[in-house]
């Protein structure tokens, strides 16, 4: 698979994942471009990986967790005027606001578990930690988000 083929096919998924991680459309776009640029540099290795998307998603997660991207200053939007603009998050969306207040690792765990649908072990592989640590992050995050778990969800 060529880089362009992969990037074009996976851009929507990566963009959605990125915006859920950082909560900022422009920052998410910059993060995705930066990560794809680095993926391009080592595309031979990525293309032969079992799951190139998982590889690039891990790069994107690391990009999000690195401090500089969090400290990025807001910039003038580039190009997005050419696209239909989604509405910004509703300020009344309490859950989304609470999600924005989570520590980065906790937020990443929540997005990986409940949006990307990964298991705790898979999340641990992405974050480079133990699955127990993932469960700890998830537990604290769900508590902060005031999520009530059903019995099934607790057992799982």
């Amino acid at each position, binding site marked *: 698979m060529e880089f*362009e083929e992969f*990037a*074009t096919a996976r*851009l*929507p998924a990566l*963009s*959605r994942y*990125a*915006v*859920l991680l950082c*909560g900022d*459309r*422009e920052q*998410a*776009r910059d993060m*995705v*471009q*930066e990560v*794809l*640029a*680095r*993926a*391009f*540099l080592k595309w031979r290795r990525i293309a032969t990986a079992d799951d190139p998307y998982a590889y690039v998603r891990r790069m994107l997660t690391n*990009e999000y967790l*690195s*401090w*500089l*991207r969090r*400290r*990025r*200053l*807001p*910039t*003038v939007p*580039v*190009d*997005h*005027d*050419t*696209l*239909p603009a*989604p*509405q*910004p*998050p509703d300020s009344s*969306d309490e*859950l*989304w606001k609470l*999600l924005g207040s989570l520590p980065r690792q906790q937020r990443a765990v*929540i*997005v990986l578990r*409940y*949006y990307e649908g990964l298991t705790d072990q898979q999340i641990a592989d992405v974050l480079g930690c133990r699955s127990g640590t993932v469960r700890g992050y998830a537990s604290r995050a769900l508590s902060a*988000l*005031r*999520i*009530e*778990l*059903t019995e099934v969800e607790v057992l799982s």
Partner: protein
Amino acid sequence: MTTVSDLRRALDDHSADAIVDFAVVAGARSRGLRLRRRRRLLSVGTAGALALAAGLLPVLPVLRDRSAPPVVVGPAVVASPAYRTPAQLGITVIDGSDYVITEFTAQAGQQTAEIRHKATATTAEESARSVNNGADLVVYDPGLFDPSALLQGKQGVLPGRPVMYSLADPPMVGWQEPSGAWAVATGPRGALKQVLRVAADVQMTTPSVPPMPFRFGWVPGGLTLDRASTRWASAQVGFGNALTVSAQQSDDPAGVISGKTLPSPVTIAGHQTWYFADADDNPGGTLMVAAGDCLVQLAARDRSTVPLADVRRMVEAMEFATCADPATWGPPL
């Protein structure tokens, strides 16, 4: 009761906030190619540059009277109109500095600059994670920054400049310019010295509209330039909400566009161009121009305000530089 289902729904809903811009793919490829070239060219010199950087130790702050209570100044209300126009930038680094401005934005109320160490900013795509790579600077127009929190910090002095700094996370260093503008630099956790080094090298200059890879020969009446930004080999200016003009380096702009389902190209002033109106009921329209190594987009928010005829006339009168070589860039107006 908030449930996991609510959480999943919130995530699904907000995933739609993402900007899915396929120009990102071309931009990523171009940036990757540039990074590869830089790494090849500079791989030999990197070790030397880092060693040099390591030898230039920071100018540490000399603490003044710590017992003196900070002076708390309340925010003024109105910025001085004479300070600068919104698209003008007045930030630079001193001659001989180890730091460079890798990205900036000038807009109403503030200027921002991403300032990075030369070694890490030019030799590796991992610069964002490198030790000692710099700080982010915001310069607020006079009267638009409330310094009271910063003034609760400690006082120090850098060469020729008293500063206030905070050990909070992130560390923050700020000072007030003679113009009344406040400059605030922030950096990563525990890197106060690094932020101080950057602050010591920052210099304010007479604000001016920064160089761009394009120059306008004609602009529709009533449009005023009110923002400008660059990041690596891409640049953008804006005329209020009416029109945005951006340029991005691309090794094959025409190829990038041709691969998409866009209209047949129309040649304007020797450049291949493609125009498309926004879908559905959206009133905007965009003209994409392949100009040398630049992929230029002129995006009008409302076709009735800035019609295609005006955009065409703009392109006819535009001059383009080499996107990959900022030395060729000049004033956009």
